[in-house]
């Protein structure tokens, strides 16, 4: 196969090949020396060298020195995945004055040494991949990255503490933010909590000021009760469609006086209050909680007489002096532009009905930890008093850890926050009710600043800590003392004896799970997620808030279980990444767009319907296809479709791929 001789090939290839040991990561399963000697024999190879760490500065300098000394015009590095270090080596190549696209990488770590048991077989595989890369790079051409201007606004999806913190950080830098929240108010889970560990400061006291800052910030547009329904475009220039659900109340008029709520035809509240986890009731017209932001009421169309039955005295509308209530409000679909997107969609708590042994839903006084957060909250259903469903005070309380965590039947992972919030709840329960509190844990995990000290404090307070996973919460009594109580069956593993502990109240420390619609959200934004539904970061250590999709960043628990300090830190990081991209003003696009060789094109139009971005048109005068480079995203589908080979893709030319195929197969 010959190169197409358009002057971009830089003369006959003089190739430098560099094989990386990656410490012992590669060298343990690949005989690097043998691969290096093998590469020397390949056509066009002038230099072949091995080095401990190619990505290190001396490694990169080695390449640059050779380019100058040996007049190299093609570089191959066999090391880790190109998704890891392709950019590093392209830069190294460019720094020596060579076009960065005269570079090709062979992945002999992730695809060879880490997945192959036998060193000889690993070495063979590495040789094949190096041969493929060498043959491919011979046909590489000089290319330029295209620059595209970046839209300066940022979209943040989710108004929990992560979204709030990211929004404020960006807005404070002077950039504009659109914050979209699905619920009628921002605040997320944190707004439901009573106290925060380990300092025990009140969640509302530290959160609500930030919520009102969001509301009042000139650079923040807050759309609550809204969802993103479509995303187009790419890094720097996203077009986003937001659907605003009707709340049947004019947001601009409502002042949050709540007179409408008092005057609703429902004199008694009878709908389960979502914010209080169903522990109290609300009316069809309601405000989730007193500090809700925006402080605007909302009408639930399912239970409102007017909206569900079409018949009501509409006393609420009468009561409103601002005439804010509008039963004819319709869903609104709005299109906005943004340069970067931060996903902060949070988590949901595990539903303990999935573990019937723990009696949730069967025994009245088995609560989830989130319910208890509301129960101990001064603005909660009982005004902060710890009472059971029948109004009595519990004398003994069991807190069961790891419910829906570390369990192969539900979630394999550790939810990370439960140990600490269980300690917090244990403290609060003891303080408020003076009951005996038993913590049942598998392992106590307190790795955070001040966390172990908090555990010490609980131990001092006389809370019982029983190391053992509870098998069952039941009500069959064996002794008189157990009659009428719930009995926790557990092995006290430190003592080595099964125990039965009668209690009045059981708190299930439920784990954190991905949002049920995480899969839809991830498709919408083109990011990937783990099997459990957590969004996947670009790199677990070095790019923890970026995603595989440029311009989309992650903050908070949507990426994995996280406590508040970590969430806020990550939100700040995501904001900084988004700002870095926007302040740069442009993004560089990988030059892998498709083009048409007009000489060859017969104008058959096969490619036109194949393009998902309608980037291809037919020039009726010349009778050939024309690709709009600005619209092309570089998938190459048109190239694979073209019957004559006129359509080609930069970086992935047919002939380059054929060379690679031949290389990996016939390398010896």
């Amino acid at each position, binding site marked *: 196969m010959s190169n197409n001789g358009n002057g971009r090939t830089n003369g006959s290839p003089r190739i430098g090949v560099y094989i990386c040991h990656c410490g012992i990561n590669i060298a343990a399963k690949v005989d690097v020396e043998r691969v290096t000697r093998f590469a020397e024999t390949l056509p066009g190879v002038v230099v072949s060298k091995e080095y401990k760490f190619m990505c290190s500065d001396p490694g990169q300098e080695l390449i640059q020195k050779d380019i100058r000394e040996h007049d190299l015009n093609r570089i191959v590095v066999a090391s880790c995945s190109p998704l890891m270090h392709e950019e590093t080596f392209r830069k190294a190549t460019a720094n020596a004055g060579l076009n960065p696209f005269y570079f090709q990488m062979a992945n002999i770590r992730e695809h060879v040494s880490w997945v192959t048991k036998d060193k000889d077989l690993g070495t063979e595989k590495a040789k094949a991949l190096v041969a493929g890369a060498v043959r491919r790079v011979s046909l590489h051409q000089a290319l330029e990255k295209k620059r595209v201007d970046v839209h300066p606004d940022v979209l943040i999806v989710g108004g929990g503490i992560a979204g709030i913190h990211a929004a404020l950080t960006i807005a404070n830098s002077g950039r504009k933010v659109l914050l979209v929240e699905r619920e009628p108010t921002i605040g997320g889970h944190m707004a439901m909590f009573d106290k925060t560990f380990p300092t025990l400061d009140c969640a509302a006291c530290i959160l609500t000021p930030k919520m009102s800052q969001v509301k009042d910030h000139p650079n923040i547009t807050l759309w609550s009760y809204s969802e993103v329904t479509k995303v187009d475009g790419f890094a720097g220039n996203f077009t986003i469609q937001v659907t605003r659900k009707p709340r049947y109340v004019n947001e601009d008029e409502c002042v949050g006086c709540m007179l409408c709520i008092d005057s609703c035809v429902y004199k008694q509240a009878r709908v389960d209050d979502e914010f209080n986890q169903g522990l109290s009731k609300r009316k069809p017209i309601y405000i989730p909680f007193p500090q809700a932001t925006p402080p605007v009421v909302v009408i639930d169309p399912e239970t409102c007489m007017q909206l569900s039955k079409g018949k009501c005295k509409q006393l609420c509308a009468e009561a409103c002096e601002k005439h804010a209530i509008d039963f004819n409000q319709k869903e609104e679909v709005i299109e906005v532009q943004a340069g970067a997107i931060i996903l902060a969609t949070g988590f949901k708590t595990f539903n303990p009905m999935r573990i019937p*042994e723990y009696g949730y839903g069967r025994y009245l006084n088995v609560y989830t930890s989130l319910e208890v957060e509301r129960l101990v909250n001064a603005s909660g259903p009982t005004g902060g008093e710890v009472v059971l469903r029948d109004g009595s005070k519990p004398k003994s309380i069991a807190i069961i850890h790891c419910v829906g965590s570390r369990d192969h039947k539900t979630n394999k992972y550790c939810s990370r926050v439960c140990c600490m919030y269980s300690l917090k709840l244990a403290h609060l329960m003891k303080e408020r009710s003076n009951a005996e509190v038993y913590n049942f844990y598998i392992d106590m995990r307190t790795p955070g600043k001040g966390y172990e000290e908090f555990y010490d404090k609980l131990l001092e307070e006389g809370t019982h800590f029983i190391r053992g996973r509870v098998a*069952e919460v*039941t*009500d*069959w009594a*064996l002794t008189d003392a157990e009659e009428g109580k719930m009995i926790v069956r557990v092995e006290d593993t430190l003592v080595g004896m099964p125990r039965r502990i009668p209690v009045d109240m059981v708190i299930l420390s439920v784990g954190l799970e991905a949002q049920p619609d995480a899969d839809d959200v991830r498709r919408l934004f083109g990011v990937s997620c783990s099997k459990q539904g957590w969004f996947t970061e670009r790199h677990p250590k070095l790019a923890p808030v970026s995603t595989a999709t440029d311009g989309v960043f992650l903050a908070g628990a949507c990426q994995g279980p996280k406590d508040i300090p970590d969430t806020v830190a990550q939100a700040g990081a995501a904001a900084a990444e988004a700002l870095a991209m926007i302040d740069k003003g442009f993004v560089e696009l990988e030059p892998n767009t498709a083009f048409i060789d007009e000489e060859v094109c017969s104008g058959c139009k096969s490619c036109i319907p194949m393009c998902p971005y309608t980037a291809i048109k037919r020039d009726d005068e010349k009778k050939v296809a024309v690709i709009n480079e600005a619209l092309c995203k570089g998938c190459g589908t048109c190239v694979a479709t073209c019957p004559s080979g006129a359509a080609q893709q930069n970086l992935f030319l047919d002939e380059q791929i054929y060379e690679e195929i031949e290389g990996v197969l016939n390398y010896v």
Partner: protein
Amino acid sequence: MTYLYYPGCSLKGTGKAYDESLLAVMKKLGVEQQEIDDWNCCGATAYMAVDQDRAYALASRNLALAEAQGRPNGKPVEVLTPCNACYLVLLKAQKRLEEDALGKRKLAGALESAGLNYEGKVSVRHPLDIFVNELGLDALKEKTVNPLNGLKVACYYGCQIVRPYSTFDDQYDPVAMDQVLEAMGAETLKWPLKTRCCGGSMTGTIPEVGMRLSFIILKEAKKRGADVIATACPLCQFNLECYQNEMREEFGEAVDIPVVYFSQLMGKAMGLSDRELGMQRLFVPFAVPAASK
């Protein structure tokens, strides 16, 4: 559909009434069955402890016999297995054959040398599974002539019917038996000991342990106001019923309560005679109280 019937050793001995009542009930419901010819011991619990591979061989012979006997019909072979222990062992053997390629080859070789072959075409079903998921509760209602109105039944499933291989019911809180008996008019107990172990063979070997396990179950059922306990396993029935006198002596507390097979209750509701249902074999006599007629 004709089911192949695998009674197991116990249903020919202490569990005779289970065998009799189940067959009578199925006849009344029009469920055809045919006993597997020359079946052998399933290889249950006690055998498993001595020699696992041979236990699987025992189970496999039964499966192979069933397959050979059932295949000519050209339909899938379904083996009805009323005894909990047999049900578990047959399922366990199937699972082993599916998952363990090496074990499978070994067994296949052994079967072959005995002139047998098993291709894995048998599905093992418990009668409760058939009643609920094949016949349906409506069919049961239809056949009910003496509804068990007002009879408070504690359904006791035992361990091995739901754990660990069966999939037809919830492992923690099974409901199939409750549904069957409720369809026939009975009131069933919501209680937490439905699947707690009765002691198994321990009532024979270490009576002080085995009896206590049974005692706990009986006491709880009684405390919750049950008129009768319904079981689905010959060993459970035996343990719960036959040692009640000994329990009174051992624990100083009377826990006299009738313990029957669920199929016997079904038979009563369907108007079958006591003889047909083997009611005379009970140690603690049971009659559907007049009030519930």
